[in-house]
């Protein structure tokens, strides 16, 4: 297996790693770089627990992404949304609306929401529900997650105006 020397810019910081061609981004994050905020849920891109953002807004499942294909790209994880101890409005909204129960899906869910609101800052409830498909939660029935996305959308609209 060929090894690749790659550079990943994760949460604003450059990391140079050498990876075999078949190394998954999730394993690089969790095992090689000890950034465990990105979760393994299914390993097959079905549940979304491993969601990360590429170039700030495109959401991907890191469990089905080869790390080598991400050479030179900017990756954001849930921990990277927090800046100088300040949470991202989406994270605040998830806490305020009690959208967090067991928490295992939440890093992915929060990133999916950031991605969704970047594309569509003012989504309808239907658009939110559709946008969350691909990220599974077994605790909340999505009810309070949908409310958190709505609240985040309002907060972010308010802070821009």
């Amino acid at each position, binding site marked *: 297996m060929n090894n690749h020397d790659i550079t990943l810019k994760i949460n604003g910081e450059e990391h140079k790693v050498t990876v075999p061609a078949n190394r998954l981004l999730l394993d690089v994050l*969790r*095992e090689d770089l*000890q950034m*465990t*905020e*990105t*979760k*393994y*849920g*299914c*390993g*097959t891109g*079905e*549940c979304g*627990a491993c969601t990360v953002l590429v170039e700030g807004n495109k959401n991907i499942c890191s469990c089905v992404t080869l790390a080598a294909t991400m050479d030179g790209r900017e990756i954001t*994880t*849930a*921990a990277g*949304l*927090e800046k100088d101890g300040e*949470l991202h409005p989406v*994270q605040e909204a*998830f*806490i*305020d609306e*009690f959208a*967090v*129960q*067991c*928490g*295992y*899906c*939440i*890093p992915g869910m*929060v990133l999916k929401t950031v991605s969704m609101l970047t594309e569509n800052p003012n989504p309808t*409830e*239907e658009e*939110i*529900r*559709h946008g*969350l*498909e691909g*990220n*599974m*939660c*077994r*605790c*909340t*029935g*999505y*009810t*309070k*997650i*949908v409310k958190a996305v709505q609240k985040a959308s309002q907060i972010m609209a308010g802070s821009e105006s």
Partner: protein
Amino acid sequence: MSNFKTVGKSERKLDARGKVTGKTIYVDDLQMPGMLYGKVVRCYEHAHARVKKLDLSKAAAYPGVIKVLGPEDVTQKEYNNSVIPLMVPEEMQQVLGDIDDQKIFTKHVKHYGDAIAGIIATSAEIAEKAAEKVIVEYEPLPVYLTSEESRQPDAVQFVEGKPGNLAFELPEPVFPNNTMGWGDVDDAFEEADFIVEDEFYVPKQKQCQMEPNTYIAMYDEEERLHCWTSTQMPKSVQRTLSKLFEVPMHKFKLHTATIGGGFGARLGMILEPEVCAMALAVPGRHIKLQSPREEDWLTSPSRHPGRYWMKIGFKNDGTPVACDAKFVSYKGGYYLDGSGVAYTTGGWLSAMYKWGALRYKGETYFTNQPICGAFRGYGNPQTNFAMEQLVDRACNKLDIDPVEWRKRWHKDVGDDGWCAGVPLSSCALDECLDRGAEAIGWKDKRAKYAKQSGTIRRGVGVGVMTHTSGASPMLLEHTVSTVKLNEDATAVVTLACTDMGQGSHTTLRQVAAETLGFPVEDVYMNVDDMDAAGYDIGAHASRTLYVGGGSVKAACEDAKRQLFERAAGILEANPDDLVMEDKNIFVKGSPDKSVAAEEITKAGVYNFLNPETGGRDKEPGQIQGYSSYFPAHNSPPFGACFAEVEVNTETGEVKILEAVNATDIGKAINPAIAEGQLDGGAHQGFGFALTEEMYFDKDGKCLNNSFTDYKMLGASDMPKMTDILVENPDPYGPFGAKSVGEGGLVSPIGAIANAIYNAIDVQITEAPITSEKIVNALKNL
């Protein structure tokens, strides 16, 4: 009316910040120095077979493999992954016939994915590759997927002492004729004007918690065995593993980790025995054992599927004169909660309505399906699916509004609940039904949907439930807690109650703060120190707030009493006359003369000596409150769910348009957290009713152990949910609280089934009610 400071408020979840940033640590996030990786070799060739030959030599020789373990290389003792045998008195274990029938690695494969060997290697990848080198020869045995097959006289016996593969039936000494109930059912049916009856099928539903099952274990230099686990029941698991591996309890350290969802799957053990056996084989090294997602369906317990016969006799005025029922479930390969679910399924049936007479039989048979055990609701969903549909069928014949019939015939305060001899302590089901009906627009919608003929039809349905708050007096409900008052008058509560994510540590902290009279921020929940924490039966039966909260309240009352006694000495007053505000203690009505709580807690440690005399002129010692708490009751909650659906009669597609989940909670300690339980419960209940089931081919191979093929409802499948918390304080629960964890799943099942019935005038008796079943039922009209 109340002047609670924190009880009743939606305080932020104490774990939420760590979870939105991902900083919260689950077992899989732990990396230990020099850690090794375990792999369980499983049988994927057969669902029923004997291992004739097992050759581990090629796997052992694979580079990077540290050790291979066959069935003889580990303890030969048998165990039960469900810890339920520990939860009843020993004599009752004998009566119930609970058994230990699992081995770490088996030579008799009893289900697809059964464990046959173990591998320990330097990486997970190497362990995986080495597993492929294991050579096994099997002698295939006949596969029995249902009890109809496994109970045949010539069937292979799963264990000795369970003839006919009957794992459990209600035991004769406690239940004459192996039945539960009252009255003479046969005579009572004679009085009935009409009878409704049917045979129902209930599905093998899986919990599907989002966190896969991961464990770490290590046997250290002091001969202490450590196990990091996300079990719901740390104390019972510690006891079970301690006995299994003959390690005394003080030499077994169980490290509780953040639980990424439980729902009953982690009630007891999953792979703790395997990982501990591996750790003992390689002393001094940490072993991580992770079960890949696709194995979760095969190796952790599901809900009990099976056939449910039910027959109810009614008089023309609606009186339910008799109910006769029998639930025969497919146990899977091992015993686990064999007695529990078969019994409680009837318990829930007995607790709901005022049947004139009742006869229930519960039986469960070993089969070659993966194991069954606890799943949120514990038999109640199965009963709800059958019972609530038959009630609505009768209401149709009677031309009685289903809400009105339920209000007239549900059990009420003073009637026996699910556990015979324990009368219901409180009941606000009428208010749940009234408020739920109003919220969904019941009367208008029922009238509007009465006559429909088009392709797209709508229906609205109701289901009700009663459940429990802890399992007293059936099980040994018990929680120990301590509260330590620090020198600066902050408090640390130590206990073993786990939080599966629902927020129980947050609500328990509110109970502690309210009782102590301290701000919530001044209370820390020490919940991961199993050496320090006393016994707790574990998170099951919706009991953590009710029993754990009762214990925390008692411990905090004990600490507060000690604090007030010391204050009374200083203030020269009677402790009973004292009150505390802003952590200042004074005689009620005289705030001018007060003593700060901190002055007392500090003096007890740092300031009790008189520097001149050397005498103790202040009360020395640190205040600790303690409680070893046994609840006096099981305060059943009640609930009503209303659902509106749209059914496409051509495609069979069902869309849930709206749902209202109203619950009689006694008192909501944290309303937002309680709502979260209703929302999540409804999601799983709707799934049971509409989409969720594990499927097998004729050889017992599971066909849908993946998130793509096992269909849970997604965000856009879920309707607008309205949660209604009906507060009618219970006389036994802490601050009047009853449970909310499981019940929210139960009534949505009846509500969806009845809404579909309302829409298409046909009842589907097999869950989940898939599109195919609807189309076929309509075709056969």
